[in-house]
C-alpha cells in the first residue's frame, strides 16, 4: 500500500512540475519570440493581404493581447484548471475538443505502430533469444543496427517512394481512410521493432543463462513449462521497462512522422500553432504533450516495480 501512495505522490508531483514548466515555457516562447503576435494571428486568420493595421488592432484588442503577460498567464492558468481551455485565435474553435481530436489521432497512429512492431518484434526476438548465434540472430542484429541508423523520415520517404509512388499500394499522405495510416505506422513500427527485437532477444538470452533457469532444467522441467515461467517471465521485466521507454520516445518520433505524412495529430497541431503564433493552442498542446510524457514514463516505472512487489 505504501508503495502505491509513493507512486501516486511522485506522479502528481512530476506532472504538476512538468505541466507548469512546459506551459510556462510555451508561454514565454510565444511572448518573447520576435515579431508581433497579433500580426501573426491576423495573417493566419485573414491571409497576408487581409492583415491590415486595423485588422491587427482588432485581433489585439479582442483577444486581450495588450494586457500584461503575467495577467494573461494567470488568467489562462485559472481557466485551464476550470476546464475552459479557450479557443484558437486563428480558427476560433474551442481548444479542448480540438486537442482531444488531435490527441485521438496521434494515439491511434502510435498505438497501431506499437501493435505492429510487437507483432513482428516478439516472435523474432524470442527466436533469436533462444537460438543465439543462429544466422537469424546475426542477420536481425545487423538489420536492426542499419535500420535504426536511418532517420525516421528517410525510412518514411523510402517507403513512400516504393509503395505509394511506384506501386500505388497506399496513398501518400492525408487522413481519410485506414490505408492512410498504414505507411506512417509501418515507418514508426520499423524503428520500434528494430530496437525491441534486440532487447527482447538479449533479455531472453540472459534469462536462460541464469542459475535458476539451469536449476529449473535440473528439476526436470522442459519445453513450455520451462521457458514460460522461468525464461520469459524473468525476461519480461527488462522488456517491459524498455518498451515503456520506447513508448515515451515515440512521442518525439510521432511529431516527425506526422509532418511527413500530413497526419493531423498533436504534433502537427503544435507545429502549425507555433508558426501561426496561436498562443492558446500552443500552450494547450504543450501541456497535453507534457502530461502524456509524464504519464507514460510513470506507468513504465510502475510496471517495472510492480513485478518485484
Amino acid at each position, binding site marked *: 500500500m505504501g508503495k502505491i501512495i509513493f507512486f501516486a505522490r511522485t506522479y502528481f508531483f512530476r506532472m504538476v512540475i512538468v505541466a507548469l514548466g512546459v506551459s510556462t515555457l510555451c508561454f514565454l516562447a510565444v511572448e518573447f519570440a520576435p515579431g508581433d503576435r497579433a500580426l501573426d494571428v491576423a495573417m493566419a486568420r485573414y491571409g497576408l493581404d487581409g492583415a491590415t493595421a486595423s485588422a491587427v488592432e482588432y485581433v489585439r484588442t479582442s483577444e486581450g493581447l495588450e494586457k500584461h503577460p503575467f495577467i494573461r498567464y494567470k488568467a489562462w492558468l485559472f481557466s485551464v484548471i476550470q476546464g475552459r481551455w479557450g479557443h484558437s485565435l486563428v480558427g476560433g474553435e474551442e481548444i479542448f475538443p480540438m486537442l482531444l481530436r488531435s490527441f485521438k489521432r496521434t494515439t491511434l497512429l502510435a498505438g497501431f505502430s506499437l501493435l505492429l512492431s510487437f507483432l513482428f518484434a516478439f516472435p523474432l526476438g524470442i527466436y533469436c533469444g533462444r537460438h543465439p548465434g543462429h544466422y537469424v540472430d546475426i542477420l536481425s542484429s545487423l538489420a536492426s543496427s542499419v535500420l535504426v541508423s536511418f532517420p525516421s523520415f528517410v525510412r518514411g520517404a523510402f517507403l513512400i517512394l516504393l509503395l505509394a509512388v511506384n506501386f500505388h499500394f497506399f496513398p501518400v499522405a492525408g487522413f481519410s481512410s485506414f490505408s492512410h495510416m498504414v505507411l506512417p505506422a509501418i515507418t514508426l513500427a520499423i524503428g520500434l521493432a528494430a530496437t525491441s527485437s534486440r532487447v527482447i532477444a538479449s533479455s531472453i538470452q540472459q534469462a536462460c543463462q541464469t*542459475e*535458476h533457469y539451469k536449476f529449473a532444467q535440473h*528439476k526436470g522441467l522442459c519445453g513450455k513449462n520451462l521457458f514460460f515461467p522461468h525464461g520469459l517471465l524473468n525476461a519480461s521485466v527488462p522488456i517491459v521497462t524498455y518498451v515503456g521507454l520506447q513508448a515515451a520516445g515515440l512521442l518525439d518520433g510521432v511529431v516527425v512522422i506526422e509532418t511527413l505524412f500530413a497526419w493531423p495529430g498533436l504534433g502537427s497541431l503544435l507545429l502549425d500553432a507555433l508558426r501561426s503564433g496561436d498562443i492558446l493552442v500552443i500552450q494547450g498542446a504543450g501541456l497535453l504533450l507534457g502530461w502524456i510524457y509524464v504519464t507514460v514514463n510513470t506507468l513504465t516505472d510502475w510496471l517495472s516495480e510492480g513485478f518485484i512487489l
Partner: protein
Amino acid sequence: MISSLSVQHLFILDEKKKPLVQNVSFSISSKSVFFLIGETGSGKSLIAQTIAGTLPKRLTAKGKIFFEKQNLLLLKDSERQKLWGKSLFLMPQEPFSALNPLLSVFHQVREIFEYTKGMKRNQANESTKDILSILGIPYQVFKEKPHKLSGGIAQRVLLAMALASPAKFILLDEPTKGLDSSRKKDAILLIKEILNNGKTLLCITHDLSLPLAIEGNIGILFRGILVEEGKSKDILGSPTHPYTQGLLDALPERGLHPIPEELLEKLERTWL
C-alpha cells in the same frame, strides 16, 4: 547390494589432453551415501559435473559411468536431459540463486509434482502442502517469493524439492560451503533426512566432518586420483594412505595441523 551408480576408469582431459582426473573408479550402493572428499583442484567437482552431464564442452571424459543400466558417457545431451529431475537430482549450493525470484516457493515446489510426477493441479497442491509442512516450513511462507525467506527456510525448500522429486539419486555439491558450525548441523540433518527417505546420495565436499558424522562410504581424491576408497568408518578410523592421515590431522578437533609440504611433494612425485 544393488549398485546405483558405478564409475569405472574415468579419465577427464582438458583441451590440451592433459589429464585432470585419472582412472577413478568407485561404486555407490543404492540408499546409501558416498562422500567424495578432496581439496580444491582435486577434480571432485569435475567428476560431479560429468555424472550430472554439465561438464564444459572443452573437456573430454573417457571411461564408463553406469547408471540405471546405461553408460552416461555414451548418452547425447538430449537423452541426458531426460534424466534430470526424474532419475537424477542436482542439489544446488545456494538457494537464493537457484530459486526463481519472481515465483512463489509454493509454485516452484509444486512444479515438481506437476511436471515430473504428472499430477493434476489439485493433487499437486495437496502434495506440496504436505511436504512443506512436514519439513516445518510455516504456512505463511508458502506464497512468498524466495528473497523474503531466511537462509534456513530456503535450504529447507530446496530439501523439499529434493524429496518431492521422483529421482532416487541425488548429487550434493559442497553442501557446507561457507557455513558456520551451527548451520553445518542443519546441513547434516538435511543429509540424514534425504537418506531416511530412501534416496541415494553422492556428496562432494572437502569437509571431513560430514563423513565423520554420517555413516556411509568415502573416496579420497588427490589431484585427480582416488587414493583411498571404502567404508568411512574403516578409512577414517585407520587410514592407510598418508594423505588421508594428513586431512584428518588438519581437522580443528585434531589440532588443525596443516598438511606438510614434504608430504605433498612426495605424493606428487610418486603418484603423478
